């Protein structure tokens, strides 16, 4: 098995192994297992990147069992960037969780069986989810995609249900049912596709797939399923409740990683499997839904009273940005530029949204609640967290030095070259609306509050983790050249660009 194959397998295996160890050993081993897994992931990712830069896109059959029955792993620029994103946010969330699910139980809190159980069970669930993510990004065939999606969903449901209040359970249930419906739609699509071409591997499907009736049905079903799991605007009903009511590290990884992973699945389908079946009309529909998502999500976020619900609706809005890329189907000149913009925007959104939720977690830990009205003067208590929230907001708004700005810049360039005026206007309006829901908290942080402020101590690690993640979001703006070169490996968007044939 080639070196890159080894790195790929270790990327998937490390978190799963750590998860099982944490599960088996239990009690205090969770955080340490997570730490070991994180280290392993970072090393293997570095190795994989090194390999890819030398040899280009790599594929390997796990354990010698090629497709269709065995697991076929495939890595190219796009998946490596996504792995980079999950590594960044994953390490950040793990560091934050050390403080949040603190080992040493705080003296002032009475012993609570449910709380300690939740503290221990976070780690295995999170490592399973991490493994599922890596499996998703590396999977080479569409059924593996389904399996990875399911693994991710089930562990995410478990994580949401951690908080053992009724609303958390209710939200987890609703999320589970919605994801199951989505997965089944996706599976039906896979079935139809297999019925047509009897092939599961993505690369081989790319050559075989034409615009036959069954393929269009399959594509429609699969896209719908994944849209439901990515919570694109009309089908987003489960996201605000789920992300708004789960513990801070959980909602951070849900909003930044799980949602983006599902979007990655759609992107992978439309770019490789259905490259020839996709039509500009369908792309335009998805883009229009995206634009509607931006407007609806932002306005909802502005109207929210609770900080975490505000950030959840902001996720609904930012997902809309990602779908704007579909407007460029068939416009090969600007399509590659647009897709680079979308992927980079996804990367910086993940970091920014992660930092925002982690900062919100520290604020809630200190204030005891997250009602925006009651947070006046929080700036004096938690300057680092508020600063991290501000930096993350800066990236969401797409203000210059941040990664969001680079994504926005590429998308705007593409939109103006392709002459899609409404896309450019939506992007700019999205930026302004993002300011609409970022600044209320900053405003309250700077307000000087009359009555004294009773604040509970927040572990240093939590605040620092959110700050580091926010700084990553901003640093992405400064070091944009390297990741974009990385994205070129294996030319993921080449099939889109080459299908100049149908207008």
């Amino acid at each position, binding site marked *: 098995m080639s070196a890159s194959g080894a790195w790929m397998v270790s990327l998937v295996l490390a978190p799963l192994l750590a998860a099982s160890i944490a599960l088996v050993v239990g009690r205090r081993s969770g955080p340490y297992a997570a730490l070991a897994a994180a280290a392993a992931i970072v090393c293997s990712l570095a190795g994989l990147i090194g390999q890819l830069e030398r040899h280009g896109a790599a594929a390997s059959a796990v354990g010698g069992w090629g497709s269709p029955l065995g697991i076929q792993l495939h890595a190219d620029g796009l998946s490596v960037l996504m792995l980079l994103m999950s590594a960044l946010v994953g390490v950040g969330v793990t560091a934050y969780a050390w403080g949040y699910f603190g080992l040493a139980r705080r003296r002032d809190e009475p012993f609570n069986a449910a709380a300690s159980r939740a503290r221990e069970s976070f780690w295995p669930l999170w490592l399973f989810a991490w493994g599922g993510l890596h499996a998703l990004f590396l999977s080479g065939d569409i059924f593996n995609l389904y399996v990875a999606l399911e693994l991710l969903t089930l562990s995410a449901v478990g994580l949401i249900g951690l908080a053992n209040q009724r609303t958390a359970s209710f939200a987890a249930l609703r999320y589970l049912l919605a994801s199951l419906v989505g997965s089944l739609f996706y599976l039906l699509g896979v079935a139809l596709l297999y019925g047509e071409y009897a092939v599961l591997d993505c690369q081989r499907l790319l050559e075989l797939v034409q*615009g036959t009736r069954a393929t269009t049905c399959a594509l429609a*079903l699969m896209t719908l399923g994944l849209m439901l799991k990515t919570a694109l605007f009309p089908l987003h*009903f489960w996201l605000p409740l789920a992300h708004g009511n789960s513990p801070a590290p959980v909602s951070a990884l849900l909003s930044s990683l799980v949602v983006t992973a599902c979007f990655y699945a759609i992107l992978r389908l439309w770019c490789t499997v259905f490259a020839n079946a*996709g039509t500009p009309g369908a792309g335009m529909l998805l883009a229009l839904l995206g634009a509607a998502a931006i407007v609806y999500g932002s306005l909802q976020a502005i109207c929210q009273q609770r900080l975490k619900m505000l950030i959840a609706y902001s996720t609904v809005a930012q997902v809309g940005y990602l779908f704007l890329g579909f407007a460029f189907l068939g416009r090969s000149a600007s399509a590659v530029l647009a897709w680079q913009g979308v992927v980079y925007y996804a990367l910086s959104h993940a970091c920014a949204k992660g930092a925002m939720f982690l900062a919100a977690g520290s604020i809630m830990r200190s204030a005891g609640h997250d009602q925006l009205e009651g947070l006046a003067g929080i700036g004096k208590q938690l300057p680092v967290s508020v600063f991290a929230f501000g930096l993350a907001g800066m990236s969401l708004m797409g203000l210059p030095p941040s990664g969001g700005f680079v994504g926005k810049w590429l998308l705007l360039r593409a939109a103006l070259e392709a002459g899609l005026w409404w896309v450019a206007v939506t992007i700019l309006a999205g930026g302004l609306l993002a300011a609409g829901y970022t600044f209320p908290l900053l405003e309250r942080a700077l307000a000087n509050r009359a009555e004294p402020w009773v604040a509970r101590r927040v572990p240093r690690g939590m605040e620092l983790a959110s700050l580091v993640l926010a700084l990553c979001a901003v640093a992405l703006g400064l070091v944009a050249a390297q990741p974009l070169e990385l994205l070129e490996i294996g030319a993921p968007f080449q099939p889109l660009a080459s299908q100049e044939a149908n207008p």
Partner: protein
Amino acid sequence: MSVALVLLAAAAPLLVALLYLFPKLRGVAGAIGPWCAAPALAAAACVQPDLTIEWPWLLLGLRLGLDPTGRMFLAFTSLLYLAAGIYARSYLEQAADGRRFVVFYLVAMAGNLGLILAQDTLTFLACYATMSLAAYGLITHDRREESWRAGRIYVALVVLGEVLLFAGLALAATQAEGVAFEPMRQAMARGPWAEVGVTLLLVGFGIKLGVVPLHFWLPLAHPVAPTPASAVLSGAMIKAGLLGWLRFLPLGDVTQPEIGGSCVVVGFLTAFYGALVGLTQRNAKTVLAYSSVSQMGLVLVAIGTALGAPAAWPTVFSAVALFACHHAVAKSALFLGTGVAAVRFNTSWQRGLVVAGLLLPALALAGAPGTMGAAAKVGLKYATAAGGSAWAEASAWLLPLGSLATTLLLCRFLFLAWPRMHQQAGPARPGLWLPWLVLSASVSGLPWVVPWSNDHLVEWTRAASQVKWEAIWPMILGAILAMGVWRGRIVSARLAAWRIPAGDILVPGERLAERLLAVWNRYLVGTLAHALWLLRSWWSATTAPRFTPRFSRLSAAVENWGTMGVLATLLALALAALLWLD
């Protein structure tokens, strides 16, 4: 040595004014204050007239110097400031805030002397502005309600004048190579906006001279100022406007008949209007102010003829310069005279001396033969005659009428300012009547003392010494009329009824301005502000609060299983259709 003298002339007043900043040195500054004009007088006397000093690093290239016109103006202005300075020293002996007056007086003097010595536009403008703003301090010195009002109006017109000058000179400066006077005059003559520039300058400097439509500040400001200040205001500062015309207008270079003609008309209008309104005044100093307005009208007539007929410019120049010199000295002598006349006399011969002292400059102003006034009158006659246009004949018979009006006005002044015995003012101190006496004496003696360079002046002074009938009939007629009115009770009673307040056209003007402002505030600004307020309150009262609940109700409607199911099926069909169609 002469360079140092010129620099000292300009800088002395400023340096002394600065001394006032340090409390210890105030006594010294008070003593040498009035003598600051001495170096300027010395410079005028002995510095050869073609000297220029260049400082390119100061204020876009400062250039000071003395040319023939400058020298003449410097002579009478420094004489005036010296006399008024000494007068002021004793006049303000007992006044508490004498120090503040002296500072403003010195800064005004620095500005006035500076603008005479200036040889380039920007220095001229800078000194002109300093003089005008410092004069505000002199006008509002005694802090009475009328002086505040006069000060306000004075500043308004100064700013207007300043701004008009700025526009006119800027228009010319682009065409001119440098900022010196000669290139500016060329630019004024030939630039694309020659007429606009000339009109702007005429109006800008006209305000300072008190030309009719914009003259109303003068009769208000001069009387309220303390006597030495009004002497300087009426004598020296008015002439700054005239100097501005001489420096910048393209006289003798290009014919602008229509502007020239209108100047002559306005000039005569100012002359007669000033005299008539002056007659109805109660206060002696206001009468003198109106007489200045009317005299400056005559100057405007001369300038108008020069504009109309450039050939006549040499004669007009000498006439105007002589007239300015004579008017400055005579008018300030009269102003100081009013102060001296109000003093308590213990012997009748002192009163007789003061009466004689008042009569002499009055006669000079009226143009009695043997005085400089007569020479000036002759000069004016020749100047307007040399014009040669239609206005020449008209001015031939208008000028005598002008001097008739002036004589009537001066009789009115004498009637008001007649010194009486047992007046309750302080005793006559030498510091008061000595400078006044010097000025009155110089009115008659000056033309023979100052060595005239060009022949016009020599010829006119010789003509002035003989007694000619056509020169003196207006004076005699005026005197007879005045005596008749003074004697006849009925006529003087009815005349007393025609009482026109000082600053004549200003009073209706102010009422009109107030009404306009009220309309502007109530309608334009009022409605605009109200509309904005309405819009803001509608937005905050209605849309914002209604928006949030309605929008959250919408979210409940969208985010449930039912709608999700329907929308999902619709989307599936739409996607399939779109994928299938093309």
